[in-house]
Structures are given as C-alpha cells and as structure tokens.
C-alpha cells in the first residue's frame, strides 16, 4: 500500500533536481480549452496526452496549461500554441492522433501544422 512516507524520498529526489531545472517562464505555452464546451468535446484526454508526450520526450521549455472558453465552441477541443516572438496558433477539433505532429513539427521544429489550424476549417 502507498504510504505518505514514500513522499519523503520523492521530495529528496525532486529537491536534488530542482536547482538543475531551468525556469521555463519564457518558453512555449500550450493552452487547452477546458470550459464546459471543451470538456464535453473531449479536452481531458487531449490535455493528458500533451503533458505525457512532452514529459516522455524530455522537452523542457514547454508549459501545458488550461484556458477558458474562447468563443468557438463548435471547434472544440481547441488548443492554442504560443511560441515566444511568433503569432499564436489555434488548433481546432483536436484529436489525440494530431498531437504527435504538433509536437514534432511545431513545438520542436517551429513549423505550425497549418492543416489542423482554424484557418483550414473556416472558408
């Protein structure tokens, strides 16, 4: 059974790593819409997968956070990617299998995946 005492070991390990961990306030931000419309459309697994994939690939300068309703409920789940110094990119009708390309092409290599953005869905 899990015991609170195990957290002591986790703490010590984390404290040892903390000084090494860089501040990522000026890094890339991934914003997942988590208002009622987003959650109903399936935002929870999208957010989870972004967090897991970014951790798995050891990408350090990215922060995944949640955001409210941005007024395009019919396009939910919506994910916004903000790269410092570039215009914000809005991905719409997100599915889990779009995440791989967004991370590889946009977050790692700096090239937005245009076909998943809102511009490709609106006429």
């Amino acid at each position, binding site marked *: *059974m*899990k015991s*609170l*005492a*195990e*957290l*002591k070991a*986790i*703490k010590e*390990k*984390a*404290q040892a790593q*903390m000084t090494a961990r860089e501040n990522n306030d000026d890094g890339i931000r991934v914003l997942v819409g*988590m*208002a*009622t*419309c987003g*959650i*109903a459309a399936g935002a*929870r697994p999208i*957010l*989870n997968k972004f*967090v897991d994939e970014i*951790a798995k690939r050891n990408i350090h300068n990215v922060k995944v*956070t*949640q955001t*409210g309703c941005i007024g395009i409920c019919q396009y939910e789940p919506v994910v916004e990617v903000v790269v410092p110094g570039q215009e914000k990119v809005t991905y719409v009708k997100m599915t889990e299998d779009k995440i791989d390309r967004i991370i590889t092409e946009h977050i790692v290599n700096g090239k937005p995946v245009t076909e998943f953005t809102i511009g490709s869905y609106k006429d």
Partner: protein
Amino acid sequence: MRELSLNVLDIVQNSISAKATVIEIELLEHIEKDLLEINIFDNGKGMTEEQVKSVIDPFFTTRTTRKVGLGIPLFKMAAEMSGGWLDIKSEVGKGTRVYTSYGYSNVDRMPVGDMNGTVSMLIRMNPDIDFVYTHSINEKSYVLDTRELREQLDDVPLDTPDVIEWIEEYLKENDAELTT
C-alpha cells in the same frame, strides 16, 4: 457530458474561477441503498441566493447581459435524468456547496467514468490549490488530502511528475481496497 467525472471536472472549474483555495470532492456510492452522491465544496467567493437561483435555472432569469452558463444545468440534468437532484448552498465570502444525487441502478444514470483521472488532472493543473477527495463504497471509504501531501513535500510542488504518479497509484490502490 459522457461521464459524471467530466461534469465534476467542469464544476470544479467554477470553484477555481471563484478563487477557492480548498476544494473538496466526494464520490459516495451507497450501492446497498441504490443511491449515488457526488458533492463539490469550495471556499471560493460564493454567490447570493439570487445568483444561485439564476445559475440553477438560467432560462427563468430575466438577465440578458451575461451569456448563459451550461455547466450547472448539465450537471443538474444528469442527476434528474436518473431520478436524483442537484442542490446548491452558497454564501458570499464563504464558499459554495454543490450536492447531487442519482439513482444508482437507474438505466439513465451516466457512468461515473474516470474520477481518478479528474482528480489527478485537477491537482496537476492547479498545484497551488488544495484538494480533498473522498471515495466511499457502502461503509468503506478513503480520503486523499493534498494538505497532508504538502506536509511531507515541503517546497516540492504537487505537479512534480513523481508526485502525480504517486497520487495516481494511491487512488488506484485505495479503490481496489474499497471493492474487496
């Protein structure tokens, strides 16, 4: 919503918007009484009686200045569909208590779904808020209280990956214990 755990995820967003610092979630499965209860309590900014009335029944309000919220009406509908109800008690400056009940075996009761996923996501995305999660099945229950975790962790944040993993394991093990 496809599962009640998603309604909970959504309703807790209201508590977060209301600047709550402690949020309690209760999942109480009284299977022997054919009753399911899901309650969410916060210490956020609260609402007036008038506000509570209008959020529960947004279409009865004469207000047109604000967009009509969907979160609470959807939660209420999920409860009523199964023969249950939703009730809100709130006090300005003190906090809000949202109570729901369901007919456990009612065919129109939505599944609870991945409540542990909701709890761990809420902690991960809001590491500065304290969460208290209680899950009971009949007379057995357990509690996860992030304030107790913090005591062990000192300045190590709750959204540290190893901590989240510990929480997920803790919930899984305790759930297994509830059904033995």
